[in-house]
């Protein structure tokens, strides 16, 4: 199954062939020096196939050979994925560095799983058992998890276990079971299986309504704009508003099992931060390195653009695989705009009729299909697994009225809009409390949340008014409301990501602090002078800020709480 190159334009190659060509199947463009460049068929017209090449096309010539494969672009699934750092096509980057050095050489590909590693397999079914695709045949320990070895997801129908390997050490390529299908034919199962990245992987009894809060320990998220296990959310924001820092904090503190970070077309420097820091960070819940439950997919902006398009799918597939084991997975995609731009680049080269801002017409449906891969599912064994997807969006000019942001907002369950004004004023995390929304319920009682949101909106109105009529034209009552709104912003919504205590607030502490703040917000201070009002609220802010910095249940925490209580009891006259 070969063809010949007839045209090269950027990462698009057009090849003529007289063999069968499958849409979205894999092809290799063979450079005259023998290097084979991985590609994907993106369009077939008569005997002409268009391929997007996942590498730089430098040096390809008209007349060079193209090899066509039948299979679609796939990833290798099996034990040993956790802790890995892959590029967008599941090549392990540390291994590549060992082989080819500082630079990524086109045409160098390495299997995503270790071929020689021995895994301690424990069988969980006996010969004669009836199984279906996705059922566990046994398990191996992988770090802190029990990694289930499942019947390949692509196998249709029911099977009878003919034989199963005894407990012992096996590699991913060893046969661990033989299954007989209904026609009596035997099939061998190994620990490793392949799955095409662009096809959602979901073998379950049913999809559930996502409702269990996913705590990120970021107060503004958990309390005001919560996310749930199995839900979706997006973080659009102009550059410099703190998207990436927010993603990194979430990756560190979110209460989930498996964390998948897809750095898609973003800065290499940020990935390096994750790469270097995660192994050193100790996960408070397991006492082990955070890296043991993390997979990093990184296709940074300088890496070939077509692989960037594939990288989010690679990440989603790996995430779905762990969900099949009844685990809770969080996939952070940074940034979906770069992924959309990769589609736009290709679409332009294919000379498709452009939609808005030259994005392809199918942009929205692709975005929707990607987020739909999230979800909480009940597996056939009754266990519940979930995949939560959070994507950042980098809108051009920070303007949310652009196709990628709009396409995303239609399909996600929560919207954390970052604002330039807030980040300029160093109010981090710069999630805009007035514009953002969430359809999920979080750790704080919704009635209380509604009250503070009302206060924030009212405070904003008054502040706007004050810029027109001035402080002197505002009643002390309104002035106090504005001060209280600002107080809530300062003491609760803002969080210092670089402080050990303030940077991560667990759910129960959030409830305590929130209630205490409500006491202040509900308090009738009875101010009759604006200067006194400001000074009092400033002192209150100072108290709460220091309280946020105090480690839970330390002496400082208790002393400050006493002072706060006294502050409330005396209506702010004393501490």
């Amino acid at each position: 199954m070969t063809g010949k190159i007839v045209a090269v334009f950027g990462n698009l190659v057009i090849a003529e062939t007289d063999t069968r060509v499958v849409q979205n199947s894999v092809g290799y463009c063979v450079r005259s020096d023998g290097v084979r460049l991985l590609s994907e068929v993106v369009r077939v017209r008569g005997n002409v196939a268009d391929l997007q090449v996942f590498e730089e096309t430098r040096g390809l010539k008209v007349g060079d050979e193209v090899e066509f494969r039948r299979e679609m672009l796939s990833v290798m699934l099996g034990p040993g994925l956790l802790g890995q750092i892959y590029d967008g096509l599941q090549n392990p980057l540390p291994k590549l560095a060992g082989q080819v050095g500082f630079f990524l050489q086109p045409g160098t590909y390495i299997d995503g799983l270790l071929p020689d590693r021995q895994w301690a397999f424990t069988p969980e079914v006996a010969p004669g058992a009836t199984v279906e695709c996705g059922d566990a045949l046994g398990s191996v320990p992988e770090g802190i998890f029990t990694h289930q070895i499942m019947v390949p997801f692509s196998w249709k129908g029911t099977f009878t276990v003919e034989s199963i390997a005894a407990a012992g050490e096996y590699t991913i390529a060893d046969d661990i079971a033989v299954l007989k299908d209904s026609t009596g034919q035997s099939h061998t199962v190994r620990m490793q299986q392949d799955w095409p990245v662009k096809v959602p992987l979901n073998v379950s009894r049913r999809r559930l309504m996502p409702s269990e809060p996913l705590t990120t320990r970021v107060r503004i998220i958990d309390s005001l704009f919560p996310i749930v296990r199995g839900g979706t959310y997006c973080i659009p924001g102009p550059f410099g508003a703190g998207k990436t820092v927010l993603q990194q904090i979430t990756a560190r503190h979110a209460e989930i099992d498996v964390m998948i970070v897809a750095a898609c077309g973003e800065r290499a420097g940020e990935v390096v931060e994750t790469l270097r820091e995660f192994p050193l960070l100790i996960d408070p819940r397991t006492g082990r390195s955070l890296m043991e439950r993390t997979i990093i997919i990184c296709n940074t902006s300088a890496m070939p653009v077509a692989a960037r398009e594939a990288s989010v799918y690679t990440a989603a597939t790996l995430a779905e695989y762990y969900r099949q084991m009844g685990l809770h997975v969080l996939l952070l995609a940074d940034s979906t705009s770069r992924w959309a731009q990769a589609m736009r680049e290709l679409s332009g080269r294919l000379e498709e009729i452009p939609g808005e801002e030259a994005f392809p017409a199918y942009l929205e449906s692709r975005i929707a299909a990607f987020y739909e891969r999230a979800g909480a599912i009940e597996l056939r064994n009754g266990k519940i697994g979930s995949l939560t997807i959070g994507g950042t969006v980098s809108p051009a000019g920070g303007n949310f009225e652009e196709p990628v942001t709009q396409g995303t907002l239609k399909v996600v369950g929560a919207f954390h809009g970052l604002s330039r004004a807030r980040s300029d004023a160093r109010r981090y995390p710069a999630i805009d409390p007035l514009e953002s929304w969430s359809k999920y319920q979080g750790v704080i009682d919704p009635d209380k949340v509604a009250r503070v949101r009302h206060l924030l909106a009212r405070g904003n109105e008054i502040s706007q008014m004050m810029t027109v009529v001035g402080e002197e034209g505002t009643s002390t009552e309104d002035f106090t409301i504005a001060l209280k709104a600002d107080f809530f912003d300062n003491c609760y919504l803002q969080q210092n990501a670089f402080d050990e205590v303030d940077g991560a607030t667990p759910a129960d502490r959030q409830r305590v602090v929130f209630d205490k703040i409500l006491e202040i917000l509900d308090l009738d201070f009875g101010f009759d002078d604006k200067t006194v009002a400001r000074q009092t609220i400033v002192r209150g802010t100072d108290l709460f800020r220091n309280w946020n910095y105090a480690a839970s249940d330390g002496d400082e925490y208790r002393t400050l709480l006493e002072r706060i209580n006294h502050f409330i009891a005396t209506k702010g006259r004393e501490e």
Partner: protein
Amino acid sequence: MRKYFDDITRIAGNVVTVKAGGVGYDDLAVLTSDRGESLAQVIRLDDREVSLQVFAGTQGVSNNDRVRFLHKPMQVPFSDALLGRVFDGSGRPRDGRGPVDAPPIDLGTPAINPVKRRMPDKMVHTGIPMIDIFNSLVESQKLPIFSVAGEPYNELLARVGLQANADIIILGGMGLRHDDYLKFRDAFEQGGVLGRAIMFVHTAADPVVECLLVPDLCLAVGEQFALQGKTVLVLLTDMTAFADALKEIAIVMEQIPSNRGYPGDLYTQLARRYEKAVDFDGSGSMTVLACVTMPGDDVTHPVPDNTGYITEGQFYLRNGRIEPFGSLSRLKQQVNGKTRDDHRAIMDGCIQLYALCRESREKRDMGFEMSEWDKRLLTYGTLFEEKIMDLSVNIPLFEALDRCWAILAECFEPAETGIRRAIIEEHWPKPLT
């Protein structure tokens, strides 16, 4: 025997299409016309038709001029002999001295494997408080200076270049005015760094396409020095000229424009260059500082916008000052926790207060009564601008921090600064009550 192709089928813009075979994508060619020889690069292969972007432009090219393919990508000779030299956008000497005889290296090498990068952690001291305190520059950072034409961005660039203490300084000029080029040269000469500087200068008078190669030349050379363990600083000005040259070629190639005529792959094109900034694990580093002029002072213009998403922060230069709002160094957290314990507190505190000061100014300008608090904010703003923000201020970091404390103490009570008590107790310059 040299093989020539002379069946030129199309000459449009700076692109020439010639019928030829056996040509590799991205390969280099030489186009010979009555005007002399020009380098050209393959930008599209379509059956027998090969499209070339011609670096010297296509003026005077005829449909039976000759093209010879070199069967190699663009290269530049590399050795220590480059130091102190000046070249043009095609890599030809511009200083009247002979060509450099050294083994060539390819331009546009593959991406760096992220796992071979190390975490940047060395602060670059510039003596400019707005950078050192508020947005520290870090070795291996890629950072643009956003400004409008007319701001002293080249002066700022040169000053950072001189004070940054790099082993090698590489200047890439794109669409540079000739006197700006001379200014850079003089600044480097006076600063005594000319001997470790290399300049690739494309002036506004040179063919537009030649400017496309300038970043690649600078970065390829810089990368090699970094691989030799050197600390390299690359200064690029002006990247908007580079983007405009890309736009020109894209439109001639009939690519569908995405935003204001710029090609859809502008982000990728810029990223491939900026991402060359690196701190190699076990070798040297390359820092990239670039000027991006914003047409109409519009940061949402595609060039600054895409740049902002690629680079690790940005400096806004406005009214001769580095703006504290919007300016950002994303890597500052890597270094500013290790300088002095009050660095971060001052960084946040001073800016928050300065933001409040601007609000008060707005109120004042609209004719509202100034409260006592407003008045203090106004005093603070004036002091802060004079003693810290002014670009002429040239003091080391610790002195600048102390100066900030003095200003704060002059204007505010400790609790009003929003700075944590523990830090206040240690650094407040006046006795605490």
